[in-house]
């Protein structure tokens, strides 16, 4: 036990020291405080606008939080996932003479600070936004944090570590959790028949007595309802069951047999977790850590030098299941088709938005919004910087950059077409305008790509991840604002097509400038360390 506490304590101290030695940490802290203040302010306004006030609304919000978070955790435990084991744990902790149960608690404790912060926000938010009495808020904190943490940890131990369960037992538990989730979904669906479609339907489902009968998830809600709404037969029984479970589960976990058979699954999970961390660090969110399957494909190399990078990437994409497309492409297509269908079936009308001539700017605006949303997805080019051959190829850095990113621009055009064509047709804008909207989307994506390249490759030694995110967002924002100003002037003076062309010209100019800066990375290998 003392060894595990030692790891946590020393890791925390060293990490804190390291961060405090960087001046930018203090800037980040200021931004974080401002951000939190903004969040608290905006949530207050949001709840006011939603006319959500008082204990009843607070209970519904907590119920939603419980329904959303608990099944997700348990499903991952039942799949022997969801615990943050790293390779260092496999190396130094699994083989050490430490009880495997303690090791599970240690892994679970890594998520304790985040959980504590979240529950503090809920408790303090209750006082600020919903006028909850501080004593009740404290009591709630004890229930949802302390009791829930004990119960959840114990259930995690039982699901993850109980070796008497076997594969069949684990499957049964997984099935039971799914049964609870399905019961909740059915409850929600049943509300559709008795309520008009909307927010109230969800609220009534969350307040439904049957929800409280669902083990653990419902019992937790029952306890909260007992605390805030007052006693009734169902919440008294279910809250009692909740307390019984909170006592029985730790006892069962204490008694269960656990010699560390889960280590093998945890090792696999550690591989996936480390891979996910690596992807997060490099900004790549696509795909999973598991090995991808590739098709057979061929490509004819036309030309040499840096062009070889393009053809090699093309070969890789041809071997991929969906060629250049990824899940973002399908999301864009889905959004566009749904919007077009909504217009077609008369559910929604762009004319109702009373935008007049500015209506043609809806598509570029949606494209810009999507560029912001998917800004964390780093494309394939970043892998080129990990490959020493990129630097050995006898060609200029700019040509290497161009051929490393060319397919990303093609991909952006395809995604742009997915987004703009169905929606553009439904909106009734001209084919030329649709084409220009596709170009705008591709230009905005190019800006994002080269901004990422400059930030991650050149600026990352100077700024932390928070600082880089700010630079990324503000640069993209500045380009967009300048582009919008140009587009508005062009539209007023000549017409929307001219406005679009000015926007494209501004975005292309910035993309070229950023690409020139980014090409530095393709000239020297030191940049490898940042990827």
């Amino acid at each position, binding site marked *: 036990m*003392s*060894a595990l506490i*030692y*790891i946590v304590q*020393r*890791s*925390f101290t*060293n*990490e804190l020291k*390291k961060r405090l030695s960087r001046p930018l940490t203090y800037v980040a802290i200021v931004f974080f405080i401002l951000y939190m203040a903004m969040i608290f302010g905006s949530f207050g306004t949001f709840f006011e606008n939603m006319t959500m006030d008082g204990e009843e609304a607070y209970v519904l919000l907590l119920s939603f939080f419980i329904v959303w978070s608990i099944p997700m955790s348990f499903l991952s435990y039942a799949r022997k996932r969801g615990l943050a084991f*790293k*390779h*260092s744990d*496999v*190396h*130094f*902790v*699994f*083989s*050490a*003479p*430490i*009880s495997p149960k303690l090791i599970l608690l240690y892994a679970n404790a890594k998520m304790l600070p985040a959980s504590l912060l979240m529950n503090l926000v809920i408790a303090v938010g209750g006082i600020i936004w919903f006028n909850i009495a501080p004593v009740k808020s404290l009591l709630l904190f004890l229930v949802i944090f302390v009791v829930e943490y004990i119960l959840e940890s114990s259930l995690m131990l039982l699901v993850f570590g109980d070796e008497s369960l076997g594969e069949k037992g684990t499957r049964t538990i997984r099935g039971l959790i799914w049964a609870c989730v399905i019961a909740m979904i059915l409850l929600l669906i049943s509300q559709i028949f008795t309520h008009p479609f909307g927010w109230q339907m969800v609220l009534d489902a969350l307040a439904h007595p049957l929800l409280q009968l669902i083990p653990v998830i419902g019992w937790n809600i029952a306890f909260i309802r007992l605390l805030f709404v007052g006693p009734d037969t169902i919440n008294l029984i279910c809250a009692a069951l909740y307390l019984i479970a909170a006592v029985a589960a730790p006892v069962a976990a204490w008694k269960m047999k656990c*010699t*560390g*058979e889960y*280590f*093998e699954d945890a*090792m696999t999970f550690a591989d996936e977790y480390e891979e996910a961390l690596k992807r997060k660090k490099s900004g790549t969110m696509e795909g999973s850590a598991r090995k991808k399957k590739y098709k057979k494909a061929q490509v004819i190399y036309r030309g040499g030098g840096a062009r070889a990078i393009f053809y090699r990437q093309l070969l890789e994409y041809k071997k991929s299941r969906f060629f250049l497309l990824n899940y973002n492409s399908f999301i864009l297509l889905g959004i566009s088709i749904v919007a077009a269908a909504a217009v077609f079936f008369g559910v929604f009308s762009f004319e109702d938005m009373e935008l007049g001539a500015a209506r043609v700017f809806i598509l570029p605006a949606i494209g810009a919004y999507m560029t912001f949303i998917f800004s964390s997805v780093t494309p394939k080019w970043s892998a080129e910087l990990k490959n020493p051959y990129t630097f050995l190829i006898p060609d200029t850095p700019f040509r290497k950059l161009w051929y490393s990113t060319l397919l990303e621009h093609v991909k952006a055009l395809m995604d742009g077409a997915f987004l703009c064509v169905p929606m553009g047709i439904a909106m009734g804008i001209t084919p030329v305008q649709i084409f220009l909207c596709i170009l705008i989307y591709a230009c905005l994506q190019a800006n994002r790509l080269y901004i990422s390249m400059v930030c991650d490759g050149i600026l990352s030694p100077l700024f932390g991840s928070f600082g880089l995110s700010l630079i990324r967002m503000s640069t993209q924002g500045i380009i967009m604002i300048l582009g919008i100003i140009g587009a508005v002037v062009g539209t007023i003076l000549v017409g929307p097509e001219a406005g679009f062309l000015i926007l494209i010209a501004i975005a292309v100019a910035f993309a070229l400038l950023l690409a020139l800066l980014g090409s530095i990375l393709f000239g020297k290998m030191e940049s490898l360390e940042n990827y």
Partner: protein
Amino acid sequence: MPDLVILSIEMEEKGKIMLQILDLSKSYRKTLAVDHVSFTVPDGTVGILLGPNGAGKSTIIKSVAGLLRFDGAISIQGIPNRELAAKKIFGYVPEIPALFDALTVREHIEYIRRAYRSDITDEEIDSLLKRFALDDKQDKLGNELSKGMMQKVSICCALAVKPKVLMLDEPMVGLDPQAIKELKEVILEQKAQGVTLLISTHMLEMVDDLWDEVFIMDKGHILAAYTREEAGDKDLDAIFFGATAEEQKKEEQMENEEGEA
């Protein structure tokens, strides 16, 4: 009496067995990585698991370290390997070292001291770090070290346990010549102190002057096992290629027979 028990008794009768592997089998889904393998490494000897990539060496090592589920039995000084008492006397150097990002070199060893309740003194730690040229790097964090340095820390940690059984999986990979020389000396010193060592490797020349028993593996089986005495003046190269060539001949013969049939 079950076969496993008989085998175990026979082995115990040969002398004190520090590391005992009985009828070990391990599959990854449909792939059989280790197939009914049994061997023992007696007190104070160096056993070498020799074999090509994918032979099943690392699977055996990971099974002994208690990291994998397996069929069969593994015991360390007669104690099942998953028990804490067995883990307490067992040091492990994995193939790829993975240090804690935010722990310094010295703190890694301090962690080991606490986890294993090792009686290693501060002076002994100093001397160990000096020996592997880590004394000037003891305040470096895990994520600030090169792969070779990480491997050295991993070896120091395993030695800090003061184990009775030390298991090293491809320990020479990533080490500089000085560290390899130092590690070889350490292995011989540990053996002289009565520690049992099991080393997995495919680098024959690195362990030629270290071994007492060699287990030649391929495709999840032990093809041959020799003690130093049985091998006579043959070096590991000759033993290994002799055993694998014989196995290949057998396989070809079987294939021919099957073809004819």
